[in-house]
């Protein structure tokens, strides 16, 4: 089953196209992570999925029905989809009343309402503040209450814009677990944005990468702004953040944004061929697990992320703090 199906959806502000999606399917009951740099259009997309904003052009199907962006039509759909904003707003009243609002609207009886409110607040660890004035809460408290407010409504879809950006470590884990659990138990479809790759991959079944309004297939790592200077016949010298120089095949010059494919970077403990092009030396600062792969972050002027297969990892066994040698294949660098 598909929850959403989008085709040719764009959103234009003034003359700026901030969203331009050819086609996107969101499956029911799955968890999607939406990644991308600032201003990529993540929030814009979530607002459209939440029926809180309309696309400039394009068609959207929700649960197999085409969506008409008119007031009367959208209201029943909004009952099934709840969005938690990036900077959530709580109504100027108590935490309790904030949670009660959506339930009251759905005509949930008082007793059940009270039970759901208590449960939801408990899930985000905010039950002790049920009678607090919501607009006086701290940043992280606000975010957690906003999430509880959405969860309390048991919608079909929850759209979370950076659900844990201001949440403390303990509760980040709680929230991630909570989302995973309701996804499983209630067949909830979840789309969330994040700048934390680790969190995204650990929670999501699928990762969408948005860049300048377009869906990109590339992953959201090793994205750099660099300056190119032409060298010779289709080769260019590329300086990344004034600290790393690579040689890549390109005819362009000037300021560009480029991605280095983390799966196309080689790693070794000992030097085999110092003269190989784009050979770098750096220190391992982090090693982490990621969906059947191992993520290794090497600091060499800038932070470069490598995705190693399990075999490669156990073969090289890079230890944190160790100096390693990496080499970037010229075709690993993609200019966007």
């Amino acid at each position, binding site marked *: 089953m598909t929850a959403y199906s989008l085709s040719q959806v764009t959103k234009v502000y003034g003359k700026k196209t901030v969203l331009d999606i050819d086609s996107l399917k969101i499956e029911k009951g799955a968890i999607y992570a939406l990644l991308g740099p600032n201003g990529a259009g993540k929030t814009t997309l979530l607002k459209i999925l939440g029926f809180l904003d309309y696309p400039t052009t394009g068609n959207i199907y929700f649960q197999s029905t085409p969506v008409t962006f008119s007031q009367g039509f959208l209201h029943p759909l*909004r009952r099934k989809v*709840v969005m938690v904003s990036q*900077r959530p707003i709580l*109504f100027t009243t108590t935490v309790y009343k904030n949670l009660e609002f959506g339930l009251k609207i*759905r005509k949930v009886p008082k007793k059940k309402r009270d039970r759901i409110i208590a449960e939801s607040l408990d899930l985000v660890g905010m039950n002790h503040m049920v009678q607090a004035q919501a607009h006086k809460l701290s940043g992280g408290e606000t975010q957690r209450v906003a999430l509880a407010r959405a969860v309390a409504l048991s919608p079909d879809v929850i759209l979370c814009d950076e659900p844990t950006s201001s949440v403390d470590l303990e509760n980040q884990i709680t929230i991630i677990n909570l989302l995973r659990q309701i996804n499983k138990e209630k067949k909830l479809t979840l789309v969330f944005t994040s700048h934390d790759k680790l969190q995204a991959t650990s929670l999501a079944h699928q990762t969408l990468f948005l860049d300048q309004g377009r869906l990109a297939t590339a992953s959201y790592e090793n994205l750099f702004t660099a300056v190119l200077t032409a060298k010779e016949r289709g080769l260019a010298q590329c300086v990344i953040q004034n600290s790393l120089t690579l040689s890549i095949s390109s005819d362009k010059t000037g300021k560009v944004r480029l991605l280095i494919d983390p799966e196309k970077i080689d790693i070794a403990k000992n030097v085999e061929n110092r003269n190989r092009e784009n050979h770098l030396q750096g220190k391992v600062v982090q090693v982490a697990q990621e969906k059947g792969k191992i993520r290794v972050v090497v600091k060499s002027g800038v932070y470069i992320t490598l995705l190693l297969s399990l075999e490669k990892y156990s073969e090289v066994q890079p230890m944190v703090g160790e100096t390693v040698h990496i080499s970037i294949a010229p075709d690993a660098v993609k200019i966007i």
Partner: protein
Amino acid sequence: MDFLLDSLISSFMLVASLDRELFSVVAVSLKVSITSSLFASMIGMPFGFFVAIESFKGKRMLITCLNTLLALPTVVIGLFVYALISRRGIFGPFDLLYTQKAIIIGQTILIVPVVATFTIAAISRIDDRYRKTAMTLGANRFQTIFVIIREARFGIAAAVIAAFGRVVSEVGISMMLGGNARGFTRTMTTAMALEYDKGEFTLAVALGIILLSVSFGINLLFHFFQGRTGQ
């Protein structure tokens, strides 16, 4: 300023004497102005909402027109309504002229723009995210408006209070459409105007002091009511 002191003492004496006529005048004033404030709120508020929230062509021009209507003189309203409800007017048969109803009609016209303008001003400063939040939580149009009213209640209350203040202290319409008939349509302000015309300044100001006290009482009620709903 013995004059003010005189008036102050006189106003006490008037109230103390439990003058029946005074009570009738106060009652008419309150009845008429509260009713017209209510009607004007019922018309002006939803209209203000609509203008504030929807985006449509000519919206700013509409607001400019509303602002212009804030300068609608009472004489014009008075004559306009008069033309409609006088014996020769379309609504002549209802025999409305020189009744409290006539005053209410005129006053409502006077303050609908006040309520609407200030509703717009109050609403348009409410962060749009309140509306979006209410909507995503499943609120329909009506419930969303309710949320926004709650958030803008201070400004909206100010609009209603201003409208009430405007009509309770208004003379022109009450005079023209009510007729200042003693015991029927005499309000505090028309009574004051009369005393002024007679040269009884002390009595006029004494009535004014009573009017302000009554209006203070109403505002105090409002104050406590607002206090309880939490600011």
